[in-house]
């Protein structure tokens, strides 16, 4: 059964295993947070997603060719004080920052600039969520208790553990790795994620942090909800030692 599923996965035209990015979609799916009160389905067009997060080595290369993104050059509008703070020098990795580890302590602006330099972009939240709903066998493993246990295991791990190298996680159906068990990841529309309704449902004062009830499709979808909660707490210049990113591109 497992072998059959694997064979099917390899034969799927949308899977592009063994390359640096995987083709995913187009698809309609049910995201954890409904697009609106009246609509539960979200659409993603066809896109390519990096199979692993961007590494320190790759980001160091970018910083060397785009020195305006060196931690000692970049304006404070675009990054907070901890931007790339774990690198031994502004344009050099090493020490705590190993080449194959995912780059972290990068802001949304910096992540976006990196992808743009590669003629790519950050994935949208729906693109990330759709890719992350798959396990090795099916496009939507979210109702599988074993899958959910595995997700939760990462969130339960202490944040002080050193980061593993990028690309070592189990590849999902599309060949994409490390979506759940390595770092948090920036998305292009992180500032669209709100755990309550936004302005129109709460005209008095708008305070997303004080969201009372979750407008959640599946209240048990904690791994994804934790992502949303984390991303919705960020500012564009925020950085964190567990926050990295990967890039995406449209498939024409």
């Amino acid at each position: 059964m497992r072998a059959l599923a694997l064979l099917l996965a390899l034969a799927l035209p949308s899977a592009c295993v063994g390359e640096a990015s995987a083709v995913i979609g187009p698809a309609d799916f049910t995201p954890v947070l409904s697009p609106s009160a009246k609509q539960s389905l979200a659409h993603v067009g066809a896109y390519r997603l990096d199979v692993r997060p961007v590494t320190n080595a790759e980001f160091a290369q970018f910083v060397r060719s785009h020195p305006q993104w060196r931690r000692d050059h970049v304006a404070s509008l675009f990054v907070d004080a901890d931007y790339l703070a774990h690198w031994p020098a502004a344009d050099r990795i090493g020490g705590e920052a190993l080449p194959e580890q995912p780059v972290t302590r990068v802001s949304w602006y910096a992540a976006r600039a990196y992808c743009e330099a590669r003629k790519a972009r950050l994935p949208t939240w729906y693109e990330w969520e759709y890719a992350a709903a798959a396990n090795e066998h099916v496009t939507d493993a979210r109702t599988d208790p074993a899958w959910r246990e595995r997700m939760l295991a990462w969130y339960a791990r202490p944040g002080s553990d050193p980061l593993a190298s990028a690309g070592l996680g189990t590849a999902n159906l599309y060949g994409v790795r490390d979506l759940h068990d390595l770092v948090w990841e920036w998305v292009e529309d992180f500032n669209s994620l709100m755990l309550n309704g936004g302005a129109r449902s709460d005209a008095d004062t708008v305070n997303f942090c004080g969201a009372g009830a979750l407008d959640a499709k599946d209240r048990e979808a904690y791994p994804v909800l934790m992502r949303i909660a984390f991303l919705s707490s960020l500012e564009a210049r925020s950085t964190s030692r567990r926050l990295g990113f990967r890039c995406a591109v449209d498939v024409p």
Partner: protein
Amino acid sequence: MIPVRRPFACAALVLALNGGGPALAAAPPDVSPLPGESLYQLPVTLETMAGTTEPFARHRGRPVLVTMFYTHCASVCPILTAELQRLDSRLPVEQRARIAVVMVSLDSEADTPAELRRFAAEHKITDPRWTLARTSPAEVRTLAAALGIRFKKLPDGSFDHSTTIVLLDAEGVPRDRTSELLGTSDRFVDAVATLVRRESR
């Protein structure tokens, strides 16, 4: 997004979309370096309700109240607009004259200059210190992120968005913000007045 290079590309794009119409004539721009936190480093170009294009940094040199909205928003945006007008009117006349008000649309597609003019007329916005404008979807995302405004386009074309008014100083650095739609507190009005006094010295 590359802070240094993109402004020119964006300006060119908006001009092209505009059929190369004349840009707003303005005083020679201040080219001295901006503070690191200044939003005027953002490569954002506005298309105003007059149909002209101008850099978001055009109001450099005086304080600005900035917010994001969209014209076909039935509930909150009219309240937000009215509150912004009340806030403006609570400032002493000589201070009011020194502050600009900029409302940038979240809806790049629907909020054409004509639509923005209709909204301005409906809300009796005639003061030239007020700018209603739109920009490209990518620049909406950038500007909203920098202002700390969260928004989401809904399937029916409307938007969920936080209703924040941000006070920028003369160099484009955010100095204060409020989300009080039903009566801005004296504290925020005082913050605006204090900044205007300081910037005019």
